[in-house]
């Protein structure tokens, strides 16, 4: 099935099967991952590699009695450096938290660990998850394993690059406006942003709290289902997590998609979609039709106003969330502050990078006296229109098929001088965050040596249907089996 990697399978499901039948130990598997991380240093996928503890956890997993083994026993996973984890620094890609050590583990870290996962380290990311290219990290840009002159996408840049380069079978990301789905598309992976509230955000450093959500990134839908089974569920420590039944996503994968209705929105297939992406969406549609799904046109007339609304709401929330970084309780403090005011101004000026400052300034402007109604309230009204259009569409269809990105991965440095052109990269992913609905990106074609992705959107708590559709698609096609550097 999946291409071996030094003799080791590179997906969680296949590795779990091999571990269970004793083909190799978790210690051997994790050692190979660590060697590949070392060999791929130039990609800059990791901020911190937790080798010693990972090997100890792998040995512990190998020794664990069969009846105490969780669903992820001995399986290596990488963590975006936005999740608090004890024993290793948590930086959010920022100088502000360059040496910060979280005093507790995020809920998802606890859940993965309890399921037996081996956590390999913390992956690079755009600072505080603000970026669409991986270039906004204090620790330097991440490179795309398919072509290292191109970006891997962002903000979960290191997680995407680490999986695509075969360093680890799967990784955690977060998605506020596309930060799981866009890098998944750019790196040939399958990535899922769950419904807002599906996965606990306790211990996840906040960017825009009404939009942020954690999710898995891997090669295929089967691995996402395995991870979501472990990650999903209400958490009393996150009052925005929703107490909604968590189905067995793995068991649901093989449900027939015959008779499912898939919406195709003309509004998301306009002139800003490149020809290759359009052809990829069209080819995907034909595969689904061949599998017995029905394609239905749906209208999302306000969805494209999502980018301007998002770039009011997300920066506004960020400006409030990032007020906590004041140089007093944790994080960077400037040298020799002359006064409390000087301490705030210089600590924040030195600790934050250019894009973070840009967003804080934009958000502060939008929330300031005289602009609140014109910007913030108007954006919230557009948010309702977009959400209600999705809810109306989902009375007609089970899922919606759309592009993930307007184009394949762009070159490093191509958009760093033009923030707005960078922001428009997220035009097709942002609507799902505004509506709080789940979105999945899966590989569906190639543009030269770079992968292309398509997106499936579902109703609130409709992750199961998205995974089932992706699984059916991946049974029928081989896009998810392509690997960087392999002959075409």
């Amino acid at each position, binding site marked *: 099935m999946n291409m071996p990697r030094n003799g080791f399978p590179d997906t969680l499901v296949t590795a779990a099967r091999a571990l269970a039948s004793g083909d190799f130990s978790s210690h051997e598997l994790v050692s190979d991952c660590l060697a590949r991380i070392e060999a791929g240093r130039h990609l800059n996928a990791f901020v911190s590699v937790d080798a010693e503890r990972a090997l100890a956890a792998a040995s512990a997993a190998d020794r664990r009695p069969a009846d105490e083994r969780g669903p992820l026993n001995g399986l290596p996973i990488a963590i975006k450096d936005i999740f608090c984890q004890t024993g290793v620094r948590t930086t959010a890609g920022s100088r502000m938290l360059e040496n910060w*050590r979280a*005093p507790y583990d995020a809920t998802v870290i606890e859940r993965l660990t309890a399921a037996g996962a081996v956590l390999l380290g913390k992956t690079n990311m755009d600072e505080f998850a603000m970026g669409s290219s991986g270039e906004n990290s204090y620790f330097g840009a991440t490179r795309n394993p398919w072509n290292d002159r191109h970006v891997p996408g962002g903000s979960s840049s290191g997680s995407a690059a680490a999986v695509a380069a075969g360093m680890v079978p799967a990784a955690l990301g977060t998605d506020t406006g596309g930060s799981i789905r866009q890098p998944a598309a750019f790196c040939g992976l399958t990535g899922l942003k769950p*419904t807002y*509230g599906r996965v606990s955000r306790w211990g996840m450093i906040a960017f825009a709290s*009404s939009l942020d959500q954690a999710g898995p990134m891997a090669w295929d839908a089967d691995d996402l289902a395995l991870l979501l089974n472990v990650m999903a569920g209400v958490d009393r420590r996150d*009052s*925005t997590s929703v*107490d909604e039944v968590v189905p067995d996503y793995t068991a649901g994968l093989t449900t027939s998609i015959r008779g499912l209705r898939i919406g195709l929105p003309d509004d998301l297939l306009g002139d800003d979609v490149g020809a290759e992406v359009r052809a990829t969406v069209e080819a995907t549609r034909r595969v689904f039709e061949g599998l017995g799904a029905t394609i239905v046109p749906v209208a999302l007339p*306000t969805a494209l*106003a999502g*980018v*301007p*609304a998002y*770039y*009011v709401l997300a920066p506004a929330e960020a*400006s409030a969330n990032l007020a906590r970084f*004041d*140089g*007093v*309780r*944790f994080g*960077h*403090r400037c040298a020799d*502050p*002359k*006064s*409390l005011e*000087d301490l*705030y*101004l*210089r600590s*924040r*000026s030195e600790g934050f990078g250019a894009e973070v*400052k*840009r967003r*804080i*300034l*934009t958000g*502060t*402007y939008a929330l*300031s006296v005289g602009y609140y109604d*014109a*910007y913030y*309230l*108007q954006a*919230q*009204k*557009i*948010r*309702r*229109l977009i*959400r209600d259009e999705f809810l109306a569409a989902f009375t007609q269809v089970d899922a919606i098929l759309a592009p993930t990105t307007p184009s394949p991965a762009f070159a490093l440095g191509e958009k760093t001088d*033009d*923030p*707005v052109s960078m*922001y428009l990269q997220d035009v097709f992913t942002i609507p799902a965050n*505004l*509506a*709080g609905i789940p979105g999945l990106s899966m590989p569906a074609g190639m543009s030269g040596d770079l992968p292309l992705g398509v997106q499936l959107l579902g109703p*609130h708590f409709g992750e199961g249907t998205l995974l089932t559709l992706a699984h059916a698609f991946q049974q029928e096609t081989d896009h998810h089996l392509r690997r960087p550097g392999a002959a075409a």
Partner: protein
Amino acid sequence: MAIDAEQVRRIAHLARIGLAADEADRYIGDLESILTMVERMHGVTTAGVAPLAHPIDVGQPLRPDRVTETDQRDAYQADAPAVANGFYLVPRVVE
């Protein structure tokens, strides 16, 4: 969307971000282009639409009013820039 240096300085002050003079100039151009893009929002008719703050319609969950947290001051202050006797240190505020 026209922004001037004075506005950028005022916003930066509200956000407590210190900007060097040349940095402020750069943010004028950036904010102008961002706000020009944001202005596209005003092409959408929203009369009578209620603002949406939260995407999922659920009530505010309540929990029992019980103490569940233990004292972890030492752990939390371990990474603070400057502490003494359990207090966070800042430059003198009151003379």
